């Protein structure tokens, strides 16, 4: 069947695959025919992701990407790739006047430095084949809007947006495409730290024109478009998906 959105025959690495958008992306990519390498810190939760995936040949690589050793392990262990989904991340809710070096550095380390270095090392070791598509998970926060207490996350994800544009230009000649998805709020467990209450989350939901947050698989489907041949002429772009939130 004619389907330019298929991932048949592609090998794709997804980081942060133990939950949320990463897990949904791994599962949906497998349903679209890809062989998926899933990475994260927690083997048990990666096994849960794997158990929901279709097809064979997938692989788990446990790695903590906030350390050089973790990045190196992942780079050395993973096979040659046709796609990379740089998704691992977290949010630390903190008001601007309470920012400290430790919290800022940790947030940047996981959300900005680690994905950039992982990509760079995969590139350097020639694990990214000609025609590879790289997708970063960014955010509307910091790009088109701001959220109270979200300053560290906004800072880290804005840097990703800048990186994507510039790296896309640097690598267009090598036929390596780099794009980003920028979701609004998605129903994941990223806010489980508890600084934001369920009540506040519900109030936030009502501010969305569709009166709901996104679903992880809805973000995954845009990522799949960017991984597939259907987006072969698209590089350096950021797809905003927020149910119309930033139109208001």
């Amino acid at each position: 069947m004619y389907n330019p959105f298929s991932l048949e025959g592609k090998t794709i690495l997804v980081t942060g695959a133990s939950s949320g958008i990463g897990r949904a992306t791994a599962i949906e990519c497998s349903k679209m025919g890809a062989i998926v390498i899933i990475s994260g810190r927690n083997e048990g939760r990666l096994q849960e992701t794997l158990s929901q995936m279709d097809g064979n040949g997938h692989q788990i690589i446990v790695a903590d990407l906030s350390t050089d050793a973790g990045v190196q392990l992942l780079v050395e262990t993973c096979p040659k790739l046709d796609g990379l989904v740089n998704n691992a991340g977290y949010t630390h809710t903190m008001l601007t006047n309470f920012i400290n070096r430790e919290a800022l550095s940790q947030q940047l380390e996981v959300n900005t430095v680690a994905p950039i270095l992982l990509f760079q090392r995969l590139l350097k070791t020639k694990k990214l084949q000609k025609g590879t598509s790289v997708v970063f998970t960014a955010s509307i926060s910091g790009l088109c809007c701001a959220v109270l207490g979200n300053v560290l996350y906004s800072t880290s994800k804005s840097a990703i947006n800048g990186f994507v544009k510039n790296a896309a230009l640097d690598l267009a000649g090598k036929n390596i495409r780099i794009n980003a998805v920028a979701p609004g709020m998605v129903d994941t467990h990223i806010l489980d730290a508890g600084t934001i209450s369920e009540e506040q989350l519900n109030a936030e939901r009502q501010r969305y024109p569709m009166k709901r947050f996104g679903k992880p698989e809805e973000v995954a489907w845009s990522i799949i478009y960017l991984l597939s041949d259907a987006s072969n002429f698209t590089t350096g772009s950021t797809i905003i998906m927020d149910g119309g939130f930033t139109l208001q």
Partner: protein
Amino acid sequence: MELQEFISKFAGVFEDTDASEITKETRFKELEEWSSLTGLMVIGMVLDDYGKNLKADDIRKCVTIEELFNVVNAL
């Protein structure tokens, strides 16, 4: 950790509310200046000054400042 010191730090989070309005019996969510912003400020103050991670849900369950003090004390 002293109650009086906690009350004074709590009062320091507010810009327009007079510190004399804030006692251990104050029902802090009824203060005019209370909002999700001041809630986040209290969480930041507790982390900075006491090195403890207070959660939004902990604040939700408390009515008076003394109750909040007891929750922070127990963390």
